[in-house]
């Protein structure tokens, strides 16, 4: 009887003519339990992946951490692998600087675009604009990098650079065009800003759209304009969400590898000007994997860089996601 039922197991309807004394569908219930167990295992494995990644990177970076303290690694700016000197400071400074430029470029337009999509457009316009944003997310980072080389670098070198140098350069060394190549913080930051723009837009829109419809109706019925309604929505409910969107954008930009590597100039120094070339943490890892087995502790240093990257991104991501989830779940 068992075998017979199993053979036609594909038929989902229970057999009502099954032999008396045998509960119909026992095989179905067993199958149900098996599937459940399997899926629990898969889910647990997926969730453990993050721990596994962090653990593996930690183990590989231990050799370096045994010889140098973490504080020393983070603050030293001497990077001479052949002398066993692994100071991450220039790379951390470069990553923070390029990400900061990207955020300055992207945040305000992205928030305004997110607000526009959520508060001002009708569903039809939104479904037309969404594919464009999706496409911006989908364009590979190497293509962004190439576009940066072909378009942004010459623009910065020949036009933006001299102009900023001429106007703001007198005010602060931050704006002095120190580097005639065009490859540097500003070029990389501009492209990076464009790359994280759609992410900030999407999260901003998602968070704002989770604010209940009734709230807008209530404010509008007091004779408020759309913008006043938006402010009311943003100020009271959306602020944390928009902040989370910015943090998510920041962490995405922080880990971006190829486009930054192609544009930032890759010189190991703490940048002093917007036009200085610099070096980012991801670029450090990507650029040196070839020779990392040749020197003692070199591989360990790169793994430590990856671990550092992971730690920063995890911290920002978990915090921001918790905020977004709380905001969108409440409605």
């Amino acid at each position, binding site marked *: 009887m068992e075998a017979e039922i199993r053979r036609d197991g594909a038929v989902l309807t229970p057999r009502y003519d099954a032999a008396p004394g045998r509960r119909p569908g026992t095989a179905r219930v067993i199958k149900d339990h098996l599937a459940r167990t399997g899926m629990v295992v898969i889910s647990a494995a997926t969730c453990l992946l993050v721990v596994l990644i962090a653990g593996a990177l930690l183990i590989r970076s231990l050799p370096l951490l045994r010889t140098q303290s973490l504080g020393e690694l983070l603050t030293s700016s001497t990077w001479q692998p052949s002398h066993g000197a692994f100071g991450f400071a220039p790379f951390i400074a470069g990553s923070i600087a390029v990400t900061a430029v990207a955020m300055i470029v992207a945040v305000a337009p992205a928030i305004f675009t997110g607000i*526009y999509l959520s508060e001002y457009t009708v569903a039809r316009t939104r479904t037309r604009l969404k594919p464009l944003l999706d496409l911006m997310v989908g364009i*590979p980072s190497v293509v962004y990098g190439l576009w940066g080389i072909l378009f942004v670098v010459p623009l910065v070198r020949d036009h933006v650079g001299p102009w900023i140098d001429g106007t703001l350069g007198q005010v602060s060394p931050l704006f002095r065009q120190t580097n005639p190549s065009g490859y540097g913080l500003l070029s990389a930051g501009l492209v990076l800003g464009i790359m994280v723009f759609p992410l900030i837009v999407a999260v901003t829109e998602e968070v704002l759209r989770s604010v209940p419809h009734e709230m807008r109706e209530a404010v509008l019925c007091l004779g408020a304009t759309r913008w006043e309604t938006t402010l009311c929505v943003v100020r009271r409910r959306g602020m944390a969400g928009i902040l989370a969107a910015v943090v998510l954008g920041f962490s995405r930009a922080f880990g971006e*590898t190829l486009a930054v590597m192609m544009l930032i100039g890759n010189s190991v120094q703490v940048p002093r000007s917007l036009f200085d070339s610099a070096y980012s943490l991801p670029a450090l890892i990507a650029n040196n994997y070839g020779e990392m087995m040749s020197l003692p502790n070199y591989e360990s240093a790169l793994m430590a860089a990856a671990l550092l990257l992971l730690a920063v991104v995890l911290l920002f991501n978990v915090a921001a996601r918790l905020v977004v989830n709380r905001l969108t779940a409440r409605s």
Partner: protein
Amino acid sequence: MNRKQRRRLQEAFFVGIMRTSLAGACLVLGTILAVITVRGVGALSWEMVSQPPESGFYLGGGGGILNAILGSLALATGATLLAMALAVPLALFMHTYLRSSRIANGIRLVLDVMWGIPSIVYGAFGFALMVFMGLRASLLAGVLTLALVVLPILARTFDEVLMMSPKDLREATLSLGATRLEYLGVLLRQALPGLMTALLLAFGRGIGDAASVLFTAGYTDALPQSLTRPVASLPLAIFYQLSTPFPEVQARAYASALVLTILILVVSLLAQLSARRLGKHVIR
């Protein structure tokens, strides 16, 4: 100026800013596509996309980037299928056995966070594992690493698709005496077109990702042959051609970027289409 005019002006001002931002973004996207097309189309030829590199290719010799095109397709296909084997049961699990409980939200959080981990970190992790297991850069290692990158994308996108399934479907199915597994079958049929969209999205992301395959898949001028051999990929082909000092090789990098962009465009277009064209058993 009275208050009413001021409020109206304020409204117009901010709408202006918002429209400018949006238009600016569209303009930038347009510029990207235009620059890549204009610069790429010059060096694009049939030979480029139908031949593997000949000797001296990076010095300006003959041949094409078929190795990279096929390599990228192999990597992305393998990674998407592998990720699907985990992501689909995972997403279905959240909606049949766990619907909207705290555990499901916890899994969502983990997936969202994994989505945020830079692919270079996955690459480094993949490399660490390879060293640990004594493996060399290969198609297999690349597929495994890339699968980690696309897993959260696939799982969360499919999860969102499942979230849009009608709420009554669950009650209707379960009240017929179906087990949760049987409900899962019904749900899967409902969500099949959405799954297609999610797969294409993940596939597109897989083709474009470079940082994760940099250490793990290696690079070769040969066409992909075996799981244990290194394999080329399009983003890296672009990157390496660009690194040479020869203008004609750099021009081929532009053409390769155009090929990659077209591939991405086609995939995302297919994703859009499959999202719109729903299956015949789907309840709207």
